[in-house]
């Protein structure tokens, strides 16, 4: 018998601090597999956000920065401009990227910065206990939208991939999910494509991942997956929003 699935080498063999059923763990593994498969562990640099995944460097064993809230793309830019030969990625939540870090992500894309962003959209601020995010759905209850988000007062959830796809410097933008094995595999493909886009110097690349966040959603992990499918996907359609031009 042969091992056909095991922990990727780019991951430390440790238990994570995430809630049971949290999507972060799946995405971490996909990044690690990508790094392993591309053989780039020794030249990959990650930038962890402020959010539940702030401790990402405890799980992936490439060189890493811990960013300030929202500023991962700026830090990645600083690093990439010093070491253009490295593969630099940021890993960011929806509070981090779509709220406080809006300017940084838009301008990293506009500059066509040769970095990759893995964007975890779980429609909430996980780390701080479940406040509303810019991606929180209409009607969704959070600790700061206790009666459900209304468009009257707070407008509409931001569709980050759609926005970034309008920007010339963004070479590759895709939205995926990790709700079932098929989509996990697609997410993996997208992440790999994003890294390759960077390695080919084609510009900025971003993969948005719809991710389950059971605890602050106040759901079981299974219900959380159902919620991703039934509520998130209709508003956040999966798919490739921008395709790298010269991808081989």
């Amino acid at each position, binding site marked *: 018998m042969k091992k056909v699935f095991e922990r990727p080498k780019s991951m430390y063999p440790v238990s994570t601090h995430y809630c049971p059923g949290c999507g972060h763990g799946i995405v971490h593994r996909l990044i690690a597999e990508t790094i392993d498969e591309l053989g780039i*562990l*020794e*030249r*990959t*640099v990650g*930038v962890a956000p402020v959010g539940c995944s*702030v*401790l990402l*460097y405890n799980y992936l*064993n*490439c*060189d*890493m*920065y*811990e*960013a*300030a809230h929202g*500023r991962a793309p*700026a*830090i*990645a*830019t*600083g*690093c*990439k*401009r*010093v*070491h253009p030969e*490295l593969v630099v990625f940021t890993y960011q939540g929806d509070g981090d990227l779509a709220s406080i870090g809006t*300017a*940084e992500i*838009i*301008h990293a894309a506009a500059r066509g910065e040769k970095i990759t962003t893995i964007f975890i959209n779980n429609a909430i601020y996980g780390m701080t206990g479940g406040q509303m995010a810019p991606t929180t759905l209409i009607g969704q209850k959070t600790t700061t939208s206790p009666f459900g988000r209304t468009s009257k007062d707070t407008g509409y959830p931001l569709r980050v991939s759609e926005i970034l796809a309008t920007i010339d410097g963004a070479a590759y933008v895709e939205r995926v999910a990790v709700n079932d094995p098929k989509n996990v595999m697609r997410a993996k493909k997208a992440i790999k494509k994003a890294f390759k886009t960077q390695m080919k110097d084609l510009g900025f690349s971003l993969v948005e991942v719809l991710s389950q966040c059971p605890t602050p959603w106040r759901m079981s992990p299974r219900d959380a997956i159902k919620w991703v499918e039934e509520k998130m996907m209709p508003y956040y359609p999966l798919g490739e929003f921008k395709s790298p031009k010269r991808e081989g």
Partner: protein
Amino acid sequence: MGKKTLMTGNEAIAEAAVQAGCRHFFGYPITPQSEIPEYLSKRFPEVGGCFLQAESEIASIYMVFGAAGAGARVMTSSSSPGISLMQEGISYISAAELPCVIVNVMRGGPGLGGIQPSQSDYFQATKGGGHGDYHVLVLAPSTVQEAADLMMEAFDLADKYRNPVMILGDGFLGQMIEPVEFKHMSSTDRPARDWTITGAKGRAQNVVKSLYLKPDVLEQHNLGLHRKYQKMIKNERRVEAYLTEDAQIIIVAFGMAARIAKTAIKILREKDIKAGLVRPITLFPFPYQTLERVAEKVDNLLVVEMNLGQMIEDVKLGVCGKAEVHFYGRVGGMVPNYDEIVADVEKIVKESR
């Protein structure tokens, strides 16, 4: 180089950075310092440097964070409101112990204020405008030549302590033209940077971070920083004492205000009033001991600042009640007038007789 040329303070600061081996600049335009990025946007291509205008001061300081963490000699520059926006980042850089140089060419505040010279960011620079117990090493040049010299040294100091170093000047220092000569750097060797982000090739992972969730661990981290600051205090205090030996009254001033004070002192000495000057060059660490020493010899000190009284607190902490501390300040872009300094000193001297 080694030849005197005429340059604005801003240009001299920028060229000094180039001479010091700085090859990365991230910043955002703001008067009265935009000539620094402008100069470097022209100059860096000649030496293979990377000039990048960021989308904001916040992005700038975090690009600096990224580049410093990656091992580069890196700088940013701005002026008062822009420096305020960098406070979170400066706290992060201090916490992560990254070397970098930050230039603040101060203008009048608060708020949008004005664009004329000022020294109103003394507190922010020296006490820490960001959160947490941290310190930036602050250098306050008073001539274009000194701006260039200190700028070159700033990079070494940053490396030595793995700490941000701030050059604190005012709008006039940035805009004025004076002769400047770029001294050959004694050494361009930088301390080992085995902690930097370069890709984990042949070694374990490096992490540049500032989060320590366990309070006992964070306390130890803070105490480590504290020991570093104590080292700076021990080793890096700098001050110019000008005609203090025989002085009956001491003016304390830094940067531009100190130059104006020098002219006042000349006038006063012509009038047979023996005034002297203590000019702190490092604002953090502050030369308290020098103040303590002079306070034992004179009855009166006059603090002159381009603000409404900030460094005076440090002067008082140094003097510790041993002499009277007076104040003359102009603010909002107004600069102290040497005739008024003369008048103030004359008044103090007269009253203390």
